[in-house]
């Protein structure tokens, strides 16, 4: 069972994530968008969207540090557990609260503003559900686990993080996760489910973060020959469709 939950399922989700994005990009470049609803409603979005997105950037940054940086590295530069814990919980809490507050505003907006609600697809609703559950469980782990230490002391840097790195190195050690508290287990599982859903939702816009804008020239020129979008020359190996 442990092998199934902490080896098979995560790799399946990871594979869906990678292959799914590849497929979506090949099949559906036109559908690859933020699907912004700002045109419909502005006031709530102006508050909620930056809160949520900047909060999430903080959350993701925290996860990168917490999961990918081994304890020995921080020890080596003289950051003791107490200091680390202090920074991680403080930063995590601030980012998490911003993200949750933003998400609450955005979900409230999506449900109550008529045009926004009617522009919501079924996939959006599923995605919102998983995203909300993942964020809620993450907050629970931070608040209940790390601050009030309900259910005993647990240092995720000895368990979850090590398992995650072993998972990325393709030498997964399922026992590390099996020993983790239920909150962490559920958070990880729902997060992997979200990753599996990811390529089929509007979340793909994360991978379009326009960092290239900082360096490209302002005005883009393109020649007609390269822009005949729907009539790209067929690849040699493509059979004509109806012959």
């Amino acid at each position: 069972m442990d092998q199934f939950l902490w080896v098979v399922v995560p790799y399946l989700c990871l594979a869906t994530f990678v292959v799914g994005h590849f497929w979506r990009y090949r099949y559906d470049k036109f559908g690859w968008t933020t699907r912004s609803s700002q045109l419909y409603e502005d006031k709530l979005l102006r508050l909620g969207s930056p809160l949520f997105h900047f909060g999430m950037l903080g959350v993701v940054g925290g996860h990168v540090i917490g999961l990918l940086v081994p304890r020995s590295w921080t020890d080596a530069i003289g950051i003791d557990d107490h200091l680390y814990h202090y920074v991680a919980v403080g930063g995590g809490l601030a980012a998490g609260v911003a993200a949750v507050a933003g998400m609450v505003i955005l979900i409230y907006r999506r449900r109550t503003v008529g045009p926004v609600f009617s522009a919501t697809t079924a996939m959006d609703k599923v995605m919102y559900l998983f995203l909300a559950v993942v964020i809620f469980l993450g907050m629970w782990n931070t608040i209940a686990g790390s601050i009030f230490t309900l259910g005993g002391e647990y240092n995720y840097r000895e368990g979850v993080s090590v398992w995650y790195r072993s998972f990325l190195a393709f030498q997964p050690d399922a026992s590390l996760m099996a020993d983790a508290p239920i909150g962490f287990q559920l958070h990880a599982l729902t997060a992997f489910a979200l990753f599996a859903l990811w390529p089929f939702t509007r979340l793909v816009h994360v991978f379009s973060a326009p960092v290239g804008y900082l360096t490209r020239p302002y005005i883009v020129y393109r020649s007609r020959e390269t822009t005949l979008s729907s009539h790209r020359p067929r690849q040699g190996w493509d059979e004509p469709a109806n012959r």
Partner: protein
Amino acid sequence: MRVMAQMAMVMNLDKCIGCHTCSVTCKQAWTNRAGTEYVWFNNVETRPGLGYPRRYEDQEEWKGGWTLNKRGRLALKGGGRLRKLATIFSNPKMPSIQDYYEPWTYDYETLTSSPATDNFPVARPKSLLTGKNMTIKWSANWDDNLGGSREHASRDLMLKGIEEKVKMEFEETFMFYLPRICEHCLNPSCAASCPSGAIYKRAEDGIVLVDQDRCRGWRMCVSGCPYKKVYFNHRTGKAEKCTFCYPRLEVGLPTVCSETCVGRLRYIGLVLYDADKVLEQASIEDEKALYAAQRACFLDPDDPEVQRAAEAAGIPADWMEAARRSPVWALINRYEVALPLHPEYRTMPMVWYIPPLSPVVDVIKDTGFDAEDRGNLFAAIEALRIPVEYLANLFTAGDVPTVEGVLRKLAAMRSYMRDINLGRDPDESIPAAVGMDGETMYDMFRLLAIAKYEDRYVIPSAHAEQAHALEELATECSLEFDGGPGMYDSGPFGEGSGRPVPVAVENFQMLKDRQTSDTLAAPDDKATRVNLLNWDGKGVPSGLFPPRPDATPDRPDAGLTGGTGGRGSGA
């Protein structure tokens, strides 16, 4: 010198009768789809008026276009790259749908399905965004023909400086129509604002297009364009804009708005310009000098040096020939009567306008004086400050003498041609008074008044060796791609997701769809509905007429009523 060719347009505003045919045909061709209900690539505004979207010209509010920063360098008014990325989660200057208008349809069904009642059934307006009942408060042409202008027109930004002189009294006001499309600027701020780099200027003809596959819906182009001519398709989540009808232009046809213009007031042709000069000329400090600055970017196609540089830049010989014959070039440079719209936005717009003389002529006519007499017209141009200053605010960033000069030329042409038409000897002092000779003035008259089709549109087609791949020709059979025409249906990730469909195929599918539907969503009986606007009178779409009483089951309706029913209804 870096020679580039630019496809450009000039509109002769004196001839615009405000019929909106251009807007309607453009909409039928390009934006008759879910998500673009509120979008008018071409719209016609009554001026003075608020325009569409409302007060789009107020760049202190919308922050569109370019400005000079503290160091005198050209910068986006809406903020540079870092600022754009920092505000990417919520564009602070994005117009809301209410600034355009909330699109609606009417609940026509109640008219036919209502039971017998004492009162007439009413088709109530339904929002196309929510499907709920709504109150119509504004639309793209709410102040058409100065409707409601006593309330609204005083907020027209172009009245700045002359507000107290303008009375919106019915008898004393002036008005004219201003058709607008995308300006296909030489220095497009929409393209500069796009974080994804999806908006590009075509190197061959300068048409500004949005790559629908690269657009990610960040919406910065909408706020970046000072003319508000990039629109957000709220169903597909992508930006869309006027395409200058590039599939038509590539095969030598004029744009839909030009082709269908009743007043024949649009001119399409090539202009050559020096791309290396654009930035420098757009950065000139004096706003009133920007009209001259933009003209300084243009290159004379008759200049041998320009011809050599153009050849080196790979501009084909037939394009050079078209550039020499270009009516746009003639109106801008030879006759100097065309002016750019809002040069102060520093985008170097490429749809220019011949300002209307009619506000001046109308006043003279109303006072009973001879409205074709040169002296009267010249005096009136001097005296009628209000329309002239208003036109200057639109076309020359407030530089009155330039507009005056153009109006004097138009006035001179009017009186010069009257002598000729009445069989009198032409008075050569008239063209001389505006710095032209008689022959040039007569040529200008031919181009402006006779305006033959082949003189108005000098469009070099794309080259034959590429023809198999052009959108409109598409001899590379356009149905031969994944899924074929059936792909038009909504994809699994929302409106229009999936592989792109060639424009020609999409239009074919859309027309077919439209002929059988007329609603926003997909009602249950969609398949049996008919949009009368799209019905060409031939054949009988099923469901258009009630079944014939004598129709028997073994004689299918379609074949039988197809002939007789159609003719019967026409009678």
